[in-house]
């Protein structure tokens, strides 16, 4: 079974703090993703990475950065946390099918971040 783990299930941080969210997958997947999930807004893509040291902005990258130094690990960084970044953060990794024309994503359990 694919396993995607996230470093914390719950996190409480103060405004202005630098926050690191870690994600590890154990299936050698090429692609990794960070989403945030908010009521009424659904899943929104923050950043994704298709290879080590490669990253692409998603729909809402402002206020976030990412790091992928090893294939299995993808980190999300909140440079200076703000209250509007209180949310559920979900990491995912994906594998293409044998023809490489569609991808299935596998999610971690999520990190509920509260910024006070």
């Amino acid at each position, binding site marked *: 079974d694919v396993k*995607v783990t996230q470093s914390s299930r719950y996190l409480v941080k103060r405004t202005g703090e630098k926050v690191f969210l870690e994600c590890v997958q154990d299936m050698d997947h090429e*692609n990794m*993703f960070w989403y945030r999930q908010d009521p*009424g*807004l*659904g*899943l929104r*893509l923050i950043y*994704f990475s*298709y290879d080590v040291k490669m990253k*692409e902005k*998603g729909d809402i990258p402002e206020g976030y950065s990412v790091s992928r130094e090893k294939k299995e690990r993808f980190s999300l960084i909140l440079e200076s946390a703000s209250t509007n970044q209180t949310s559920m953060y*979900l990491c*995912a990794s*994906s594998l293409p099918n044998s023809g490489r*024309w*569609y*991808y*299935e*994503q*596998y*999610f*971690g*359990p*999520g990190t*509920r971040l509260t910024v006070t």
Partner: protein
Amino acid sequence: TQLLEQSPQFLSIQEGENLTVYCNSSSVFSSLQWYRQEPGEGPVLLVTVVTGGEVKKLKRLTFQFGDARKDSSLHITAAQPGDTGLYLCGLSNSGYALNFGKGTSLLVTP
């Protein structure tokens, strides 16, 4: 950006009832995944549909991909409290990322 609409937004039913939820796109797509997310957890992949008209069954869940490849449905027979959760559809158009709908929140009461 391809728009993806899921309906209904909320559904509350009693154990034993049948239900159908829908996922509609503004344009044709190549494949679609259905996920279920339980409260406080990450989404779990249920199925991928790739062929127009395709029907897949997963126990009491039946997934259908529209002939025109712009819509999909999920039908649950004899719903149980364990089916409670948020049902998400995500579509892929040969890119790395999926585009997700906002989901249907299902509550099944005993």
